[in-house]
């Protein structure tokens, strides 16, 4: 049952990432000539990332991406190894801690805007 849920969640987060990433690419790289040239700068993005709605979207994006990515790593490790329940739990624990620290590191970026 838990594996089925994990499978579904990987697909759901994948679908979400598809939408969020397409929007992210558009907003950061294609929307204006300045962005298409790759001239990103603090000034160019400041008004957007200082906006709480965008911060919410960006943080949600990071959390979904981390879930999808770290769950993917977990799937890879469990698939290529024969380990018991204990070791599986230990790996899951390490990945959860990594995800929390990583998420905090990203959220912290908005601290001084």
């Amino acid at each position, binding site marked *: 049952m838990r594996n089925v849920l994990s*499978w579904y969640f990987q*697909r759901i987060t*994948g679908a979400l*990432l*598809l939408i969020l*990433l397409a929007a992210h*690419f558009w907003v950061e*790289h*294609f929307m204006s*000539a300045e962005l*298409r*040239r*790759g*001239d*990103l*700068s*603090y*000034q160019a993005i*400041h008004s957007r*990332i200082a906006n709480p709605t965008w911060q919410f979207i960006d943080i949600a994006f*990071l959390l979904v*991406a*981390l879930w999808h*990515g*770290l769950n*993917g*790593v977990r799937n*890879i490790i469990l698939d290529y190894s024969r380990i018991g329940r204990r070791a599986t739990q230990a790996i899951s624990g390490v990945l959860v801690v990594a995800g929390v620290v*990583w998420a905090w*590191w*990203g959220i*912290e*970026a*908005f*601290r*001084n*805007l």
Partner: protein
Amino acid sequence: MKYLRQFSGQTAQVVQRVSGVLLLVYLFLHVRTIHELSRGPEAFDAALLTFRNPLFKTLELGLFATVILHALNGIRITLIDLGIGQERQRRLFWVYSVGIGAVIFLAGAIPLVLAAMQRS
């Protein structure tokens, strides 16, 4: 024939995993750069300056291609897991994941390369 199909499915699975891990490594580097925002405009712009040379432009396009391949191949794997298109999965990999992926890649990459060339 059955062996070939299986081989292709497994190869696609490996492609999915390798590209996934690469994207996670990229996410780490990306958060590292974005974190410079907290150190103010100068620090952030200095971090961005690193990415304005042709090497990083090329790596960026490689990243774009990796994202597209991972996304389309992920959709394909999901459809097959759900029992859709199982007989045609090898063709789906080439036509759908690689073929359509190439079209999307070019649609995104050409404007970026043209814009970058205009600047320099």
